[in-house]
């Protein structure tokens, strides 16, 4: 296990200065989640347009660096994207943490790839996987709601 892998610069940065925090305007969907064992919370707001793209999204949350960074990275990655991209990236992300597979989706920039894989260090810390995945599960719930 390597702490440096877990707490990479990118993660510390997103943890300290999470992007897209707050409640975005005119959101159409939202969902929240809460881990009763540790008290972490996340609430995701998003605005779906007619083309089924996420026009805007944001989150509110309390939690550790991993959970905040993960939510923040998530919002950056999926903003402006359509449902099929979101399903695919989420699936790959969850798989990366659970089964240590790689991200293969090719419609993201190298920078984005670096950012999302910065969270792969969580693999080695099973009790922290939930911190990293909560926002992603919550995004899926938000999309399911109407």
């Amino acid at each position, binding site marked *: *296990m390597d*702490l440096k892998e877990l*707490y990479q610069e990118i993660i510390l940065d997103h943890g300290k200065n999470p992007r897209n925090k707050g409640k975005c305007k005119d959101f159409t969907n939202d969902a929240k989640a809460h881990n009763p064992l*540790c008290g*972490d919370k996340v609430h995701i707001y998003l605005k779906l347009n007619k083309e089924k793209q996420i026009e805007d999204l944001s989150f509110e949350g309390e939690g*550790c*660096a991993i959970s905040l960074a993960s939510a923040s990275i998530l919002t950056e990655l999926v903003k402006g994207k359509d449902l099929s991209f979101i399903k695919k990236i989420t699936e790959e992300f969850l798989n990366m943490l659970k089964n240590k597979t790689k991200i293969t989706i090719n419609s993201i920039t190298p920078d984005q790839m670096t950012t999302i894989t910065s969270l792969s260090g969580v693999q080695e810390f099973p*009790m*922290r996987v939930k911190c990293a995945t909560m926002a992603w599960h919550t995004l899926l719930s938000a999309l399911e709601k109407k």
Partner: protein
Amino acid sequence: MDIKNIKKEFPIFKQKINGKSLVYLDSANSSQKPQVVIDKISNFYETEFSNVGRSVHTLAVKATNRFEASRDKVQKYLNAKHREEIIFTKGATEAINLVASSFGKKYVNNGDEILITELEHHSNYVPWHYLRLEKGAIIKFAQVNKDGDVEIEEIKKLITKKTKIIAITHISNVTGAILPIEKIIELAKEKNIPVLIDGTQGAPHSLIDMQKIDCDFYAISCHKMYGPNGLGILYMKKKWVDALPPYQGGGGMINEVKQQEITFADNHTKFEAGTMQTAEVVSFAESLNFIEELGITNIAKHENETLEYGLEKLRMNNSIKIIGSPKSRGSVLCFTLKDIHPHDIATILDEDGVAIRAGHHCCQILHEKLGMAATARASIGVYNDKEDMDKLSEAIKNCQKVFKN
């Protein structure tokens, strides 16, 4: 045995954690087990195991004798007046559920009040909440003050004619506050209100004398007292053993069973349905032997010194905020670290072999009050020493380095 060298009685400390010696600071969650207790479990299964109380063959006799000798041992250790006052349960949680259920069934009605505190562990709130749902009882919360204490005046203020029971923790598992239970019990006695003490954190760290404390119920988790998992003790004053209806139903707790009617045992066994945790009960006698050999007051003294030393160390670090400053503190030290979430602290400390707990510690009410979703907690057992506190302090500094704070 010598407290200074006591780590070597605990096999868990033989291993390295992430290449470091283990600094185990999670005893309020569960304590480690000395070799004698572990060996007793094996030895019992290997040479004496049988179901107790039901058969008359040699192994059953041996097992039954050991089992009941363990009850005697607990009685003596707690200085309970009667052996029938010692009831074995699955844990403190079950002990409190038992009282809430049996006492509640008979004595709690719509509008009756149950007085607890904001410090309570969920295990000493949720069982009473059920009486709110089922009976329309009212739960009153004695407030915790800014030091993390609950004062006797606060309790006094909340007692009414409707107060049916007071249920309070002996030592808070978050602020470490040692509650003035003797005074509260005295007060309650004047008003004829029974008192349940959640002794989960009290029993491992203080001399418990039931005839002196003189409460009605006292709940203990053996796994926090260097004992096995899956075992608890409910001390129940004789008059309640006589008065309360049974809890779970099953083998062993009956008197006579007919198709239309059942009568129950008239002693403690009415609360012990089904096959008991024989090996656990038997080996817990060894835990008490272990504690007695060191002396519980020596243990408490050693733990206090360790804790005070640790507190002082941590106070020197300006980024650390210690939770609570109670008049007297049990073996618990909760803290937060500026701009670093407790979970991150716990993970990073673990890298240095330092095992602490992060979260709400099953005290959401209190954390709500503190305005924090989570805290980090270092809790002390007999095997901790000043060196452990130094390592805790260093590990916190490493943590700040990782976060560049």
